[in-house]
């Protein structure tokens, strides 16, 4: 019977797990760096039009975002299918834009308050009437620097 005696020393040694934390941290850092933080969940269809004469919009802390477009499918029952403005996480009307921009401006650091850009992320299918209304509101609160955010591409993609 001694043949079937368990051997104490013949087992495969345990793999060292000392480096596991390193691997986990590496993955963590990688995803931290590679993910684009999107602070707003879009409730609208937002296919930006294409343009190629563009300038980069650097420094995220100097930008105020305004979204507009048709509500996406799951909001259409509630909000209809006409293009709407989205500010932060809520649908808004044109008259809310001014207050929103002022509030955003006030929340920025003082030295940045004069160099803010308003980025208009508007769906290509939207009518200009809505955009003109937004622009009028922006003029009222003296937020004159705007950026029509686009995809990079040839204008022929816009059809």
């Amino acid at each position, binding site marked *: 019977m001694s043949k079937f005696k368990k*051997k104490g*020393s*013949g*087992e*495969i*040694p345990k*793999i*060292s797990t*000392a*480096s596991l934390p*390193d*691997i986990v*941290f*590496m993955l963590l*850092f*990688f995803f931290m*760096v*590679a993910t*684009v933080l999107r602070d707003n969940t879009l409730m609208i269809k937002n296919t930006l*039009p*294409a*343009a*190629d*004469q*563009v*300038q*980069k*919009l*650097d420094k995220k802390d100097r*930008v105020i975002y305004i979204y507009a477009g048709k509500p996406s499918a799951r909001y259409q029952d509630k909000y209809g299918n006409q293009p709407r403005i989205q500010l932060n996480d809520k649908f808004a009307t044109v008259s809310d834009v001014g207050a929103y921009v002022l509030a955003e401006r006030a929340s920025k650091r003082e030295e940045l308050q004069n160099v803010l*850009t308003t*980025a208009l*992320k*508007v*769906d*290509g*299918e*939207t*009518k*200009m*009437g809505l*955009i*003109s209304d937004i*622009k*009028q509101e*922006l*003029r*009222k609160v*003296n*937020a*004159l*620097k*705007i*950026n*029509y*955010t*686009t995809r*990079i591409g040839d*204008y022929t993609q*816009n059809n």
Partner: protein
Amino acid sequence: MGRRSAPEVNAGSMADIAFLLLIFFLVTTTIETDSGINRKLPPMDEIIDPPIIKERNIFTVVVNKNNQILVEEKLMDLRNIRSEAVAFLDNGGGLADEACDYCQGSRNRSSSDNPDKAIISLKNDRETDYKVYISVQNELVAAYNELRNREFIRLYPSENMDYVQADKKYTDPRTDKKVKEKLKEKLGVIKLMYPMKLSEAEPNKTS
């Protein structure tokens, strides 16, 4: 019976490998940045005293509610706008002190006097599609960029780039401060030669 246990793998260098990979990904990944067409809106409370501008110095572009583009009251395809705008801006039809010595246009008396006087007026309807509007904007900016590129290459051949590249380099935060200052001066000169005068009228209501 006499089986030896496998020697333990040294895990000491694992951390080094992990850090190496981490640094590699840190360097190679770039965070996506938005880009778009920058515009400046006119201030609201401007003194209502429009300066008198000669008809020949205005290049009117109208996008109507059916997304048709009318340039100087003629229907035009999007493809031709860029060349038309360039021809208008670069015309240089002015005489004496209004003459433009760097313009290469046809010097037609019935078109713009010089690039400083030339104004592009863009008008759209409330029913115009945003994407069409952006396409037109894009083409008009392209016309300015085309002329600015030409002059930049002509004046500063030693830079070995065009206006758009120089502007990109200037706005890049990684560019050296000294280089930036030099570029700023040169860009300023070009901007003065072809100032972007793009006026946007308030849209008319569809009746």
